[in-house]
């Protein structure tokens, strides 16, 4: 007669189902994060290698001068909203971080084709970037709770960045190449940091040791 126990049982069952369903995307996202992090780490290593190869091919004097000049400029990928310190990064929501990552990776897809390298890594960079972009997109969709809030990030004037980098790679001057390689390396590290922090943040473990 008393529907109480039945209701209780039903709610319990429902919550269990909910939990299982809800936890599903978490584990999925963890797996996706792991994949994305490993990919971006690899890209970062590639960028480092490219840069060091290029630097070793330069003369010492040129090297010094170029480093001075380069650091006076800045990579145009410094988006205003991207956190620039740990505090800011840790306080940013995951979706924001993912969006920034997505933008960054996308902005480098085209210019990466003009990246020069002694071996043939340049041919691998562009497709790897495309894959990474897809992975990040999946992650965004997996964490789609508050995606609508950060749509403005995706609407950034990407065209500017693309043009900028295109301009960089247009002429084959050493300076341009140097800047391109240095900026690429930095951006890859940025994406790696963001993804790593986001992954740790979403991981159920408190002890997020990578």
């Amino acid at each position: 007669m008393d529907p109480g126990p039945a209701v209780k049982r039903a709610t319990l069952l429902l919550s269990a189902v909910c939990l299982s369903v809800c936890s599903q995307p978490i584990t999925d996202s963890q797996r996706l994060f792991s994949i994305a992090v490993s990919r971006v780490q690899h890209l970062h290593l590639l960028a480092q290698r490219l840069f060091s190869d290029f630097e070793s091919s330069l003369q010492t004097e040129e090297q010094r001068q170029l480093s001075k000049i380069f650091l006076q400029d800045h990579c145009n990928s410094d988006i205003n909203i991207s956190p620039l310190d740990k505090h800011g990064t840790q306080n940013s929501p995951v979706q924001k971080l993912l969006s920034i990552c997505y933008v960054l990776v996308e902005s480098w897809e085209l210019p990466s084709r003009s990246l020069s390298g002694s071996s043939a890594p340049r041919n691998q960079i562009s497709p790897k970037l495309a894959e990474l972009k897809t992975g990040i997109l999946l992650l965004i969709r997996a964490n789609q709770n508050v995606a609508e809030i950060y749509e403005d990030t995706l609407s950034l004037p990407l065209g500017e960045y693309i043009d900028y980098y295109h301009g960089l790679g247009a002429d084959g001057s050493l300076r341009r190449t140097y800047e391109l390689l240095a900026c690429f390396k930095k951006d890859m590290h940025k994406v790696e940091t963001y993804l790593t922090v986001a992954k740790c943040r979403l991981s159920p473990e408190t002890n997020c040791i990578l």
Partner: protein
Amino acid sequence: MMKNDGGVRVFWLLLLFLLYTRGKSFSVPGKPTLTRCRSPEKETFTCWWEPGSDGGLPTTYKLYYRKEGSEKEYQCTDYHTGGKNSCFFNKNDTSIWVNYNITVVATNALGQALSDPLNIDVYFIVEPNPPENLNVTIQNDKGWPFLRASWDPPTKADTRSGWITLIYELRIKLEEEDEWEIHHVGQQKVFNIFGLQSGGTYVIQIRCKPDHGFWSEWSDDVQVVVPNYFPNKRSAWVLLMVFSGMVFLILSWLLHLNSRNLKHCILPPVPGPKIKGFDQKLHKSGKSVDAFKSLEVPDFPHHTFSKSEDFLVEYIEVYVPEEQELMLEKSNNLHNGCLKSESSVSDCDSGRGSCDSHTLLLDKSGHQTNTQDSQTDEQKHGEALQGENLAYTHQDMVSPDMSAGRVKTWPSVFSPLPQNRSTVDQTSSIEIAKQHCLSDSLLPSDFLTPYHSPPGHCTREHLGSNYWEFDFGNKQPHLTQPQTEACHQIQAHSEININTGVKAEPAAHKFPTPRSNEYVEVQRINEEDSVVLRPVASNYDKLFEMQQGEDYSRVKGVDSDNVLLLLQKEAMEEEMNMCPCEQLTDTTGAHYTRFARSPEKPTACTHPTPQPLEERVVNGYVDTATMFTMPPY
């Protein structure tokens, strides 16, 4: 003039003053130089500079920096945390992935000097502190210990939130060595080291690096002493030596055992030419005759024959059909069984050329041919003898083993009773020469001398010396009849010495006097298809004599019925026999070997006339007993 002197003095004083002051001049400070900047955890960073000359005046240094994207100039707030001539940027002032333009300004009373600007990005200058809390423990792995090193990341580096990712590197060496052994660890914080020296002291260090930065400094040494797990090096050596010594001993012993084989394998002996029977020594000594003597084949008969006629026929086989044998076997009479030869055991090739014809009956005297039917084997006895007109002889070259119990099928030697016996005054000794089936049976090298006797005169010269020998062989095992043991004796070789007894002379030679056996050999086959025999030389008498006593049974006598009475083996000596078979005189001769006399006309001695056996040894032959017919008296 006085004024001029004063002016000069002032002038000189001023000059001195100026000179003095010039040696210690104050100047604008020298240009400082920014040496390095470093961030330990990607959150703060510190920059150091090298001051130039200070110009003799107290100089202050200030650091100004600008961030990319803005022209605002900031000044360093913390000059003390990093030590002298340093500037520490705290978390609030630090931005990653941002270019900093840093300048140091040295200021003194006279002026200031600016250093060259330094552009840095914190992301490039990360160099963490060394890992902390390096702990090395000894783990015992079933007696073989190993080291386990564990550590913590530097305290400031925030690896937990993933802000910075560190990878580690460990190095180890023995205390007394110089070279380090470096192990790349990766991101983990535990590492195992194997392959340690027993009782050695190890020194371990560790360092770390972010994936984009610089290596940290090596941590402090940690020393660890590995216990002595290898009991004693010396004892190990002793054990090894003992073991190898044992192995060496065993190998040498094996080698010694097989030295001959090895010699044969490695250095095989060179075969020299050898002629069988050829004695080199004798040859060398000059006695060529003796040397070649051994080449003689003892049983090579040709040179002994006075006549060079060869034997055209070695033997002729007589075949007895199977039924007769069965019939004979099935008869159940005791006495029959006694004398029954082991015809059953004879093999199918009834006596073709084998030794089983026990006796060769030969006519010793030339014209006294004994017609005897000897069957090559027991199966042939009756039938073959009846029909045969030929005497068969067999040169027994081969001796199948008599002792095996097989009935050796000798080709029987038939020598029909000579027709001319009748002409002889009925003394015809039936000479049976047996070719003893020995392993070394030899061709009779002698012919019966009576052969040469003129026909018609069968004189027995070597009468008594011829014996019939019945070789019963060892039929015992094949005897189907239930016979007593003693009965088998009968089937031993019988030595029959028969003489007709008609003559005195033969009577003298009557058995049971044992005489040396004489064997007959085939001399030739005459024109009438009869075999001419002659006795063998007495060389072999002695040889056969030995076997006489055991193998042959004596003929007791010939009764009126022309029945040959045989004694058992023991009876030969004592003429007593327990076996009922021995009742020779009693029975009607059922167990006798019966010999029928051939009523035919005696012809030449060399004509063996086959005599039909009236009574076949129905009840057993003297197995493979030679059936012979008595010569007509």
